[in-house]
């Protein structure tokens, strides 16, 4: 099998995740002394369904594989898996569900996609209740993500803000937020970032007064009488109440290494929207979310979905394909 012929990278920094708080360390199985070669984890999420998360996952994966990287895509749209259909993969002998049964390693579930350098873990034929993955199984899955023999592992997440989806997103080295220039999508995107933000803030072990401030902020609606108007205001307030815990939180928030992909872009105003979202996210959340790329709206995408053929292979000369190649290069350059 092609994937087994891969040679491991010699070294890979894990500094970005060594700062994780203890509970996350335990969940991700990453410790400061870890020296094993590990893949870079990318998670493609965004809150809303139908914005192109699977398209982004497959296209970046294919672009990276075409540029010589060993890539494994994992369908973590638990309960709504369809990554295999996007890639036209009908081999469903192994699926993610087997990790909680007969399979010893996640790597054992990697199947070929027919594209050199690209494998996938399918979610086809998963158990109907897999969306409600118990904590221990989630813990095992996240731990195994780091053991997959590849340069890049790309997680295709489902819509919504369930704890499972948020935890996979947080566990990744880079979180690619995918959205389209429509109010509902933008609203869900910010809701997704906010949920991930509070998921990190709400880790166990908070001092009582800090917990109270966080709970008040969670319940907050638009109320001009409150001094806490944004997520970054909240962190500042926590820092004021408890400087030591505030610093810990800031370090924890660095785990959210966000990038934005704006899909179905129609004109220059939409491209400007990406830059505006970057500015607003910096001010509101205190987080950087640089724009990885803007994908032009292209009817060919629908045609490739219907044909169950990857867009990157069906329309390799399209402008959208060129943007995906550029996005892949950008991610790889940032990691090297």
């Amino acid at each position, binding site marked *: 099998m092609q994937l087994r012929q891969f040679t491991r990278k010699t070294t890979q920094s894990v500094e970005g995740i060594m700062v994780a708080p203890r509970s996350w360390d335990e969940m991700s199985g990453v410790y400061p002394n870890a020296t094993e070669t590990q893949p870079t984890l990318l998670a493609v999420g965004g809150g809303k369904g139908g914005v192109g998360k699977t398209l982004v996952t497959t296209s970046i994966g294919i672009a990276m594989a075409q540029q010589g990287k060993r890539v494994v895509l994992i369908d973590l749209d638990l309960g709504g898996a369809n990554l295999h259909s996007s890639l036209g993969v009908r081999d469903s002998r192994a699926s993610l569900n087997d990790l909680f049964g007969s399979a010893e390693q996640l790597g054992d579930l990697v199947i070929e996609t027919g594209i050199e350098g690209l494998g996938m873990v399918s979610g086809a034929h998963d158990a109907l209740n897999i969306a409600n993955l118990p904590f221990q199984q989630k813990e095992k899955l996240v731990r195994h993500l780091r053991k997959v023999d590849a340069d890049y592992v790309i997680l295709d997440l489902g819509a919504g803000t369930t704890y499972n989806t948020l935890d996979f997103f947080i566990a990744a080295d880079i979180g690619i937020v995918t959205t389209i220039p429509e109010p509902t999508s*933008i609203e869900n995107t910010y809701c997704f970032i906010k949920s991930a933000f509070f998921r990190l803030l709400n880790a166990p072990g908070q001092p009582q007064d800090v917990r109270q401030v966080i709970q008040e902020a969670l319940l907050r609606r*638009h109320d001009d009488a409150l001094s806490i108007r944004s997520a970054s205001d909240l962190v500042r307030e926590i820092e004021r109440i408890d400087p030591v815990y505030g610093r810990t939180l800031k370090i924890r928030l660095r785990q959210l290494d966000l990038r934005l992909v704006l899909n179905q872009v129609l004109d220059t105003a939409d491209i400007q929207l990406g830059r*505006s979202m970057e500015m*607003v996210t910096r001010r509101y959340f205190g987080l950087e979310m640089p724009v990885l790329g803007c994908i032009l709206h292209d009817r060919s995408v629908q045609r490739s979905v219907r044909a169950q053929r990857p867009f990157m292979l069906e329309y390799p000369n399209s402008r959208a394909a060129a943007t995906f190649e550029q996005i892949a290069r950008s991610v790889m350059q940032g990691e090297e």
Partner: protein
Amino acid sequence: MSSNETTPTHYELLGVSRKASGVEVASAYRAAKQAWDPQSLAVYSLYSHNELSAINHQLDEAYRTLSDPFLRARYDAALAGQEPTGPAAMGTPTLSEVSPGEEQMAQEEAPHELDPALLEEIEQTDCFDGPLLARIRQAKGISIEEIADRTKIGRNHLREIEAEQFSRPIAAVYLKGYLKQYALVIGLDPDRVLSTYPSLQNHGNWVG
């Protein structure tokens, strides 16, 4: 939480460094106004109407200060010495806070407050024609002679730019250079001016 703990500096508001040029400040201001426009998708669902109004007011104040060399220098000085002070030091210093010598200089050099209607027009317009440029210059209390001194562009050229009537054809490349410098002196984003100045639209190598 006291207000000054969460009040970003004008530079932070616009997302520019303290060494940012006038062009960078103007460009950042324009981008920020687009981002926090109440109709902008980028702020959808995050802010209330009142919060957006407050942010836009902060952006206007930041730009008003940083786009004016004199006010900016005063603001930088206030920032440098304001570590333990309150919000007053973060804003534009008032005349009551300066020494008599500085007061005279301020009276001589302080630009005129722009009419809010003109500010709105500057933000919204998609056509920086000559007459509008002249109105902005006059509203800021900047004379043709002052621009000529600072840019080394002839007074006649400057008047022709404002009138958009050229006594003889001028190479578009020169006109663009003049306009860019003119825009910088009166605190406008040169890119916006160049891209909307009527005589430069659909022109050949020569204008006029």
